């Protein structure tokens, strides 16, 4: 026995007990809930599920949800990348404050996020009043939903990129500058390949949250069935109508997106753990 390299908790009985308890917690807290979503969704048979999912209002809710995500994700991708570039490649006064500010949406309750936008852009708000006099209504229609979703999801891309770009440093990009490459070329040929996987995961997280946002959207949506009802709001509506199977059918679509998110994350981590074999310097010259 190599007792010199024994670490805390290496005894078989300690290991088995800890793994056992942790797996039970994970099973009851994380795995069974997912099983329940699909079990409830299909509890009345496949045809009922198909009927629920192809219901007119459900289809509209799916469409609106995808539309909101399609607008939100590119906006936050540009913002997150720009922010990560500015705070990891340069030092300037207020840099730390900027990094903290970007975390605000994580700390703000979704309901309060919705309220903030309602106060500003609602009919009685000081911007909303002006907009209303020009016949522009943002709240209780889809632009409001997009705006609060952008607020709620704006930290994700930046949060994924900042630690990675900080750790990678800027030597490779500086080499590109010395070799005379333009800024855009440096970003595309050096930075982008290095941050590709973190960027993808950031986008996937942004998308998952954009598709699933409930509290903030619920405040600014107005919940008009077939008009401003996103998929999570539709789930609530069906659930309150005691149509539990219908609610879980819609919920299972959202759960499927969540599971896909987890798969992408596992894949991204696997990619990142592999040694880097490409030589970006060559491509730049």
């Amino acid at each position, binding site marked *: 026995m190599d007792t010199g390299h024994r670490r*805390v*908790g290496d005894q078989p009985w300690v290991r088995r007990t800890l793994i056992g308890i942790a797996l039970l917690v994970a099973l009851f807290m994380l795995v069974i809930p997912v099983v329940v979503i699909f079990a409830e969704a299909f509890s009345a048979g496949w045809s009922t599920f198909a009927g629920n999912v192809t219901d007119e209002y459900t289809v509209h809710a799916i469409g609106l949800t995808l539309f909101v995500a399609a607008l939100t994700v590119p906006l936050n991708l540009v913002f997150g990348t*720009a922010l990560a570039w500015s705070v990891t490649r340069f030092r300037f006064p207020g840099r730390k404050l900027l990094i903290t500010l970007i975390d605000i949406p994580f700390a703000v*309750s979704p309901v309060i996020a919705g*309220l903030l936008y309602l106060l500003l852009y609602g009919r009685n708000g000081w911007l909303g009043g002006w907009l209303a006099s020009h016949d522009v209504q943002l709240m209780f229609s889809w632009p409001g939903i997009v705006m609060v979703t952008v607020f709620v999801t*704006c930290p994700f891309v930046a949060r994924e990129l900042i630690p990675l770009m900080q750790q990678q440093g800027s030597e490779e990009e500086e080499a590109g500058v010395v070799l005379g490459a333009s*800024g855009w070329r440096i*970003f595309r040929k050096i930075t982008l390949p290095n941050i590709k996987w973190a960027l993808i995961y950031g986008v996937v997280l942004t998308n998952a949250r954009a598709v*699933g946002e409930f509290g903030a959207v619920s405040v600014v949506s107005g919940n008009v069935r077939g008009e401003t009802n996103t998929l999570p709001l539709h789930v609530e509506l069906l659930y309150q109508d005691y149509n539990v199977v219908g609610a879980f059918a819609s919920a299972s679509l959202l759960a499927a997106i969540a599971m896909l998110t987890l798969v992408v994350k596992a894949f991204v981590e696997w990619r990142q753990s592999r040694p880097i074999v490409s030589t970006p310097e060559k491509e730049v010259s």
Partner: protein
Amino acid sequence: MSASANSGVAPVRRFSGRSKRVLPGFGLSLGISLFFVSLVLLLPLSGLVVETSGMSWDQFWFTITDPRVVESYKVTLWTAFAASVFNGFFGLLLAWILVRYEFPGKRIVDAFVDLPFALPTAVAGITLATLFAQNGWYGQWLAKLGIEVAFTPLGIVVAMAFTSIPFVVRTVQPVLEELSPADEEAAVSLGASDGRVFRKVIFPSLWPALVTGVALSFTRSLGEFGAIIFIAGNTPYVSEVTSLMVFIRLQEYDYAAASAIASVVLLASLVLLFAINLWQGRYLRRLEGR
């Protein structure tokens, strides 16, 4: 792009340390960031300040100390506290087994830890409510033990714990991975018991990350809404959380009252957020020996 590169050089040279000045894009990237932060984050926050400053102090105080609202603060605080303590314990356990041991299905468990972040809160809410209902998979067994979770404050704790456990696992995990085995092996080989080595060697380097994770979990729980409202029962004075109070005031079109209560929650969350960031900054500096 060369135009933005040139415009970026001057300010960068002034502020940057060594070797940071050569890169282009400072003006462009900071410009986009500041524009976005102002428009998306700061402008809406100013709306809340304007709305609450329109109230008289008496009116403001009356609204935020309404007995039903005060009861919601209490419920929110103790349930968030209970949930984050639960997560501190089991989150640490999960992080520990994921870092220290090999077992079949480890990658799947590791992936599942992020489920609460990926799953929409409304979906989590109806799922937990169904599981813990009187005739649900968990509820029927707990009922035999005389424990009621659905439609009680305990349900709030369950919803909060579910939505925020990844914060603890994902904060503690990297620190556990970085822990050097040398001190630990030395202590073990000198004959110290495992419990003692954990307390004296491992825990001292672990607890700052654990505190950060628990604090993040607590902050998230204070604001949680979607997962809670389905399982809490939302009985006034018993199982109403503060974010629901804000929502109810909004439904009554009482924007002033909603803003007043929201400003209390917002202030608490922002103070917590800044404290966590300050704490992390200090602690990370110490780790890097700067």
